[in-house]
């Protein structure tokens, strides 16, 4: 089962490596991991997408909570929630592909944020699935380079992750 874990952790040197080290030393999967400071400068928020049985995910949550730098852990995928990921894709845009790429970006509600004579950079946000389908929908020879942010997740409604 796929789970999206959101963590608040002390915004300190080494906190990220404590979390990533835990995953590697205990053999847990990381599908994606993303982290940045929050509006409270002393805290970072991390989203980890992992896969594992319920037992494994329970252990992951307990082990994360045990880390002294980890303030809170929630499994946002346990309840209604929103997931978003950012994709920047540099694609070849010459000849008929130039129009085709513009059209695909529009269909997926992406934006072209950089234009050269031969390339576009398309910015697209959405769920992992949506980004995957976009990449599947355009011809792979036209993809020059992609970078993805990893998933950010947040609970719907009045569920709040805060200290």
């Amino acid at each position, binding site marked *: 089962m796929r789970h999206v874990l959101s963590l608040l952790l002390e915004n300190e040197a080494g906190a990220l490596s404590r979390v990533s080290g835990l995953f590697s030393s205990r053999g847990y999967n990381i599908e994606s991991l993303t982290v940045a400071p929050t509006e409270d400068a002393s805290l970072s928020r991390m989203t980890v997408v992992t896969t594992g049985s319920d037992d494994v995910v329970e*252990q992951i949550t307990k082990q994360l909570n045990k880390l002294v730098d980890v303030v809170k852990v929630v499994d946002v995928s346990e309840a209604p929630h929103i997931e978003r990921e950012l994709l920047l894709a540099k694609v070849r845009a010459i000849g008929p592909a130039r129009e085709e790429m513009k059209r695909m970006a529009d269909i997926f509600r992406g934006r072209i944020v950089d234009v050269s004579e031969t390339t576009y950079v398309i910015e697209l946000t959405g769920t992992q699935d949506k980004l995957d389908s976009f990449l599947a929908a355009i011809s792979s020879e036209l993809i020059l380079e992609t970078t993805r942010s990893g998933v950010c997740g947040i609970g719907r409604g009045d569920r709040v992750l805060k200290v």
Partner: protein
Amino acid sequence: MVLTGAEIVVRCLQEEKVEYVFGYPGGAVLFLYDELFKQDAVRHVLVRHEQAAVHAADGYARTTDRVGVALVTSGPGATNAVTGIATAYMDSIPLVIISGQVPTAAIGLDAFQEVDTVGITRPCVKHNFLVKDVRDIAETIKKAFHIARTGRPGPVLVDIPKDVSAQRCEFAYPKSVSIRSYNPVLKGHSGQVRKAVQLLLEAKRPMIYTGGGVILSDAAAKLTRLARLLDFPVTNTLMGLGGFPASDRQFVGMLGMHGTYEANMAMHYCDVLLAVGARFDDRVIGNTAHFTQEPRRIVHVDIDPSSISKRVKVDVPIVGDVGEVLDEMIAVLEAERARPDAAALADWWRQVEQWRSRDSLGFRNSDEIIKPQFVVSKLWELMGDELIVTTDVGQHQMWAAQYCRFDQPRRWATSGGLGTMGFGLPAAMGAQFAHPDKPVACITGEGSIQMCIQELSTCKQYRLPLKVLSLNNRYLGMVRQWQEIFHGNRYSESYMDSLPDFAKLAEAYGHIGLQVTRPGDVEGALREAFARKNDLVFIDFQIDPTENVYPMIQGGKGLNEMILSSEDL
């Protein structure tokens, strides 16, 4: 008051009432050593290798309820300490390790004796810190001691760059410490405690299984009280020995791979299991799938939520300090005035006694050759009342665990989780510093002792009257035993050729060395060793090289599939 970083470190140690720091100097900690030199409240013990510094601090902590402290320099000082740190981490021993680091400006430039100490130790510490500002030293050390001793204890490392130890700032030791992300739960959930007691009262075939958590929480008396109220059989893990009196009728011995037949059978066939401060380790329950085939309901008390339902799913988890939860259970039990089903319990005890009558620790003694079991039994017969025992790792460790019969906690220091050869001698040093008037024995083997034998020099310097009892079978015995059973008697690299004359070696270090080759001389040698109250005596017992540790559960087998002797193979 304005002090240097180094002065602050020493003042912090004084504030924490640290008696001994076990350490080894070097470039990055010169300022710290200079400050240690100028005072005598905190005494420094100079070991001969940093691994031993940490093991000594560990032995000190295990045999007291205090935090052990070690001090090492940067680079190789820190890497040598890693084995000691990992040993303490696996057994949840509270330590504070202070390491020097190259100056802040040199970090990351591959400076002389630079290593990423915080990075290297991260997976084997409870927490660690790199102090980059002299103003953070006092608070960091306060936090380090707090984290090390509270919750599930463990080692905490504080890495201090040389320039930080030279800078100055105003010093005030914080009175209290609060860490928003670290608040261990102490009291058990009262609903869960009630549920647990109810389950215990319904049991027909109950069992109490306790581990190192009982020792670490200083809860042996509480455990004994609860166990007596219930009259259930009690088993201890290797780490938990001394948590319940071994001489008590209710004690069925250690369980696990080399545990007693009665402990393992009762563990396997019980219908309600109370697990206290233990973690269903692979050396304890063997094959998990096999263990869980037998239906039983489990109550698990542990301060570390991640220890609960890690290997074995439990029915009533209780997160909390073992001592507090046992108190709560006793209170509920006394208020209920209910007692377990006496008839069922009597039947169960009959069964347990039948298993016990197999006498799984019985051994055939010899007049010709020294049996290791005989040495440990004799040692216990002579000195058991007050002896503190440390061990190394291997066959001798299991014989020590089987034939020493601890009635009290904190008399036993062994590397259970990591299984670190070389632990015994330095741990015994730490124990002797903590208990200068008690006899301390290191039970070891000719393999293990050579992993930290240089500490005989430290023992001379500080006049530690340890008794080093080496069960010398000229083999890495546990390796040889497995090669005999599982690898067709191919003794690959397990024979110890070219051994030194240990008695002479001990004498070269300035101690007394004895070699004992005949069973008839064992008792006399032990008596002589312990009569020499001011001397370290090293006894090299030349034991039967073919002796194996029994009973035994082979890897992958279940608790009810024990081999009692070589005849069962």
